[in-house]
Structure formats: C-alpha cells, structure tokens
C-alpha cells in the first residue's frame, strides 16, 4: 500500500498514541514515547509488524506515544494508513 498524502490518527491523551504517516521513498520511523525507556523497542516492533501487515514499505512514520498498549498502537497505525489512502 502506498501513502498518498499525510494523515494522522490518535491523540496525545494519556494511554493513546498519535501516529502521523507521510509519503516517502524509504521507510523512516521515529518513535517518541513517555515510556520509551522501558517500551521503546516494543513500540517500534509493533509499528514495524503492523506496517508489514498493511503492506506499507515506504513512508515517513511519526509515533508520539503516551503509554498506549500494543492493540492501540496497531489501531492508530491502521487508521492513519487508511486515511492516507483516501482522496481529498
């Protein structure tokens, strides 16, 4: 799946995560998290796994995490990628 334009899903509220995707030639993921020290690797792994699941191989992905669980991270990523497909 290609990222057609910038899109965002999620919020900066506690236990949520805000994920922004943008078109890019390569896959570039940045993770910022309030729990980065203990869960930074897990968050990155979760994002990578779910990008793969959605067939996204090139995108700029920005993750601003406020302590979300994996199921939330996956949901926000999926929503952002779907939004990046929509026209308009």
């Amino acid at each position: 799946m290609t990222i057609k334009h910038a899109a965002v899903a999620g919020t900066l509220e506690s236990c949520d995560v805000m994920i922004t995707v943008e078109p890019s030639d390569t896959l570039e993921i940045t993770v910022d998290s309030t729990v980065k020290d203990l869960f930074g690797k897990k968050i990155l792994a979760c994002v990578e796994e779910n990008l793969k699941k959605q067939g996204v191989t090139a995108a700029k992905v920005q993750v601003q995490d406020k302590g979300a669980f994996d199921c939330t991270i996956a949901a926000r990523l999926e929503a952002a990628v779907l939004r990046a497909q929509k026209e308009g």
Partner: protein
Amino acid sequence: MRIRRTLLWIPGNNPAMMANAPILRADTIGLDNEDAVQPGDKDAARILIRNYLESVRGKHPLELAVRINDVTTPYWKDDITCIAPAQPDAFIVPKVERPEDLYLVHELLTQVEKEHGLPENEIKLLPILETALGIENAFLIASTTTGRLDGIMMGGEDLVTSLGALRTREGREIDYARCRIVSAARACNLNPIDTVFPDVEDIEGMIADTKYSRQIGYSGRAVISPRHVTYANEVYSPSEKDILYAQEVLEAYEEGRRLGKGAVSLHGKMIDAPMIPRAQQVLEIAKMIRGGKL
C-alpha cells in the same frame, strides 16, 4: 437471560477509558461509536474497538457490546464489517424505528459471520428505541424474530427531542415511553434496559430515578458515569428480603408437592405456579451477582 443491571457507555475512541472498563463493575460495557465519537473519527474508533475486543476476549466475564451508528448513516455497515469479526457479545443499534431496521443489521451480520466462518446468531442485538415512531412500534420491534434480540433499550435523551418535550430531572416527559418499552420487552421475554440519567453529578437524583425505574419493571439501565454504576447495581439487585422470600416460596412449593397439596400458602398468601419461575429467577440473579455465594 443475561443480567444487565448496568450498561456503562465507554467512548469508542478513548483507549484510556477502554482499558479501565473491566474494573468499573458494570454488567455490560457499551463501547460507543455513535454519539461519543465525532464523524471524522468513526473510522479510527471502529478499528480501536475491534482491536480492544480482540485483546480482552476471554479475559473478563463481563458482556462487551458495541453501539454502532444507526442504519440511516453512512457508517453502520463499516461498523459491522470491521467489528463483527472480533465477536462482541452484542451490537447495540440506535434509533430503531421499525422491525426492518433490525433485519437490515441482521442480514449484514449474518453475511459477515458466514464470510469469517463465525457461529451464526451468536452476536446479539440490542435495539434502542428513542424516537416517537420507535416507541409506537415497540411491540413490533420486540417481536422481531431474528434470533438475535436479547433486550430492548430505552433512549430518553433523543426521544425528548423527537417528542418536542422538555427534559426535566423528574422525567415525566418520558414516562409513557418507559412503561411502553417495559411492557413490550416483558411481553416478548426480553431484557428491558432503561435510559441513562443524564446528570453525572446528581447522585441523589440518579438513585431516586433508578428506584422508580426498578418500580416500573426495568431490570437495568444504561449509565454514563462509572460513579453511577455502584448505586444502580444496588437498586437493581435483589435485596436480602427478596432473596429470603424467594427461598421461602420455593421451599413452600416443594413441601406442597411432597405432601401432595394442590395449593400452599406463605405468610397467608396463596402460592401459585407463575410465582415459581419468578422466585427461581431472583435466586439465579442473586447467585450470579454474588459469584455463587448465597
């Protein structure tokens, strides 16, 4: 029949509140993708609800229901196709006005179940009647035979608008609808679930209104605040007196049978056949609430 003393609404786009839902002691959690989610976020919320359901499945005994958008919106089909595979216990369908509305949902749901190889008719439907037409069609809706109907919900806030009435703390403006729904639900052996009490801060008013709800026949209600849950649970639970009386009824009935008496009396009143299932139900409910301890 399920026990639904309280159905707690949880906004479907709020992960923090969803994570805490299981400990808030409501019998049913209503994950909401309707009123609590803005149009621009319905897509994200339904994915979040789906993932949440998948992550907690089997971990908690409580009932997990999802309120989809009503059948006149562009959202309800996506709600069902996205969320049904995660197998919520029930879908709550708002603004139901005719049996056809429920059949529409039923058909799509059946199709999705087939596509995903899910057991048929396992996901229940809980319609909310919250328009004048819905209320007038209450019995028709309650007698819909989809095999999924498990309760009828009363929606007071939207109804007031539909009626052109004014919302008051006392709630006399929704009296007729409340009674009509209980009657229709009981007639079809369905769970009647009452409307929310809208003022989060007014605990006293909430308790009084819940007592009234219990008095007119409701066995539970929707609540918008976790703080209302404990109070509402208490009002809808059988009291010690109710339990004792039910035990006495069953014992007296048993004794009558053993002695071959056609009729027995308890506290000077005749015990007749219809009282028996009622007493059994009270004990059943009490047992479930107390985790098997009576």
